[in-house]
């Protein structure tokens, strides 16, 4: 299975995402922001980083990158799409996911190992987790506070579209401690913490993030 990883100018975590895909048994396919070709991929990851220097708003300019046109069409047709950190910000700016990410409530850039609760294990990316499972993976961002209006919030909650929630104290002022959400269909997932940095004991706090990548491969094989 071929999983694309998009590199925008300013992307940082594209190599880690590609490595996670390879370790999970997939073929990582490098995608360039300025191309239109999706190179026969079956799924795609928008990685973390600071695309276009976070100018204007995080993800606001990356949203209009040429590659996003094709990704948007395919994702709306059901292709698995995962946005991590800056990738989540791009998904919200693209309106592929509702809401927006704003400055952390205490203004600090947070960089730490964060405990999360899996709240939806029926998405294309989270099927290998059990409902209510606690995982710990790195969180590192300055603008990770998830905001949306009341109507969107109650819709996300009632439809079970909160995928991961911060355990314990809310680190950044996100509404309802939301760390990640999905679309109605469950193929598009965005989250602020970094599963690709927690795939092996040598470099990560845990291996808890690995199942995102084995999960999507299993989803693709089954479909």
């Amino acid at each position, binding site marked *: 299975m071929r999983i694309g990883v998009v590199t925008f100018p300013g992307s940082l975590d594209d190599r880690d995402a590609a490595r996670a895909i390879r370790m999970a048994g997939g073929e990582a396919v490098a995608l360039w922001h300025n191309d239109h070709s999706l190179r026969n991929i079956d799924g795609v990851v928008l990685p973390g980083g600071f695309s276009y220097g976070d100018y*204007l*708003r995080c993800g606001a300019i990356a949203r209009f990158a040429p590659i996003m046109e094709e990704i948007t069409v395919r994702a709306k047709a059901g292709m698995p799409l995962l946005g991590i950190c800056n990738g989540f910000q791009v998904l*919200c700016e693209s309106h592929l996911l509702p809401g*927006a990410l*704003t400055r952390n*409530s205490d203004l600090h850039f947070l960089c730490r190992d964060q405990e999360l609760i899996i709240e939806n294990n029926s998405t294309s990316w989270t099927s290998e987790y059990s409902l209510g499972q606690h995982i710990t993976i790195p969180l590192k961002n300055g603008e990770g506070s998830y905001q949306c209006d009341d109507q969107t919030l109650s819709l996300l909650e009632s439809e079970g579209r909160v995928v991961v929630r911060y355990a314990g104290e809310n680190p950044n002022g996100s509404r309802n401690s939301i760390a990640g959400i999905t679309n109605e269909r469950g193929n598009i997932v965005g989250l602020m913490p970094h599963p690709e940095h927690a795939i092996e004991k040598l470099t990560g706090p845990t291996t808890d993030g690995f199942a995102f990548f084995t999960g999507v491969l299993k989803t693709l094989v089954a479909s």
Partner: protein
Amino acid sequence: MARIIVEVMLKPEILDPQGAAIAAALPRLGFSDLTSVRQGKRFEIEVDGPATPEKISEVERAAELLLANLVIENFTVRIDETMRSEKSVRIDETMRSEKSVRVDE
């Protein structure tokens, strides 16, 4: 040439931690009567020819699509009146407007 100003502000219900941090710094500097700050963005956009309704509506579309994220932000569009005078005068006008005080009713 005309200049059109777009101002983007976080919606009132969205927390503005930067504005809050600035507001917290003011009393330390002796500005004890300034109670609240909200921080926004100002874009100065120049167009060829006069600021016709068509040009303004084009700027509004750019603001909706790119300059503002309507999920969390509002924007206003207006013509920069200081650009209407002659170029030689304009520099002075601009400088004056930089120092001028606008009272938001």
